[in-house]
């Protein structure tokens, strides 16, 4: 009789362990954003705000949504394409809307090239992208407000550190 009761208890305890599962939600990770910090060209150790910055992805009409559009910032995080090996953005300094609705300001075009590695995070998350071999190129125009670009880290696994420094 004691044996039977023990059996039932074992079963009951066994089921308790499986009442909830964390596997179905994703908490382990996310495809990282590219973190860019803007530094002063005159004092390269000093962060410097870009007045009313706007960043628009190439081929997109709307600016990126990771920060408030047309605000003064010295650090932004921008999303890279996860299905192509390069992403081009237009960074507009002193962006504003003209009376006819067109955009004014100094626009510079920057292309980020990289390799992508699919990285399995967990059952709930599935695969995220880790970017490697990051290279940045600035399209030359008559009046670049971006003076220099420095890649701090070529591997983008998380958003904890600055990946790219832009001097202006």
């Amino acid at each position: 009789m004691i044996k039977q009761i023990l059996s039932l208890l074992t079963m009951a305890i066994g089921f308790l362990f499986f009442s909830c599962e964390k596997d179905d939600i994703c908490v382990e990770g996310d495809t990282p954003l590219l973190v860019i910090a803007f530094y002063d060209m005159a004092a390269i150790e000093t962060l410097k705000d870009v007045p009313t910055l706007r960043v628009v992805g190439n081929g997109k009409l709307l600016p990126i949504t990771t920060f408030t559009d047309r605000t003064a910032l010295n650090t932004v995080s921008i999303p890279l394409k996860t299905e192509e090996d390069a992403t081009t953005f237009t960074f507009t300094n002193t962006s504003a809307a003209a009376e006819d609705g067109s955009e004014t300001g100094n626009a510079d075009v920057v292309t980020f090239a990289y390799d992508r590695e699919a990285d399995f995070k967990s059952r709930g998350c599935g695969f995220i992208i880790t970017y490697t071999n990051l290279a940045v190129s600035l399209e030359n125009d008559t009046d670049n407000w971006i003076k220099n670009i420095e890649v701090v880290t070529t591997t983008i696994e998380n958003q904890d550190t600055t990946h790219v420094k832009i001097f202006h």
Partner: protein
Amino acid sequence: MLKYFINGFLYLVCTAAVAQTSNTLVTKNSELYKDTYGIRLGVDLSRIITSALDDNYKGLELVADYRLSKNLYIAAELGNENKTKQENLYNFNTQGSYLKIGIDKNTYANWYGEQNAIYMGARLGFSTFNNTLNNYQIFNTNRYWNPTSFAEGANVAEEFNTRTAAWLEAIFGAKVAVLSNLYLGASVRLGFLFTDTNKGSFPILWIPGFNKVTSGSKFGVGYNYTLSYMIPIYKKDRKKKD
């Protein structure tokens, strides 16, 4: 008396579908009753039914046990499973075979003539299997470049072959003789995964015989519903007093 009452109650709970068993008559000379010993061979009905109903699952499990003594059995399960699972952002297939070997100990005190069992058991389980990652999309909470969908990761199936796993299993189950030598059984199983070849870019998420592998936990659960037939080999006197 209380012992029989509780046994009987457990028996009813576990075998609600079975109304009556055909017991041999209990004679006054019941101490001369002989127990039948033999090999019991069967098949898991739940895996057959699931195979028929679920397009993404094919499985078969053969079960066997051999009676060693009054309450002790050597038991084994041999199975093959093929399961395709669609998760949120990826689709993978697991295909492989497993073997579980161990013992069952009957804790049910049969009346003379009864051949039923409520048992606890233990198994050592092994599985070799292949994983195929059929396709996946990239998880990304930023929706700027893909506002309505997730970016395609890969559409070419990727193989992860010759994976293995081993585990210990604790079992609680019941077997009921529905006809002479024909048994219906049910069991629940708690597995403890102690080794697996979990390497490469796609981890082991499901193991034939063990079922779902959860992250951060070594435990797995399973069950079966068996139909088995006992091939009697010899009879042995039951002791007068159990």
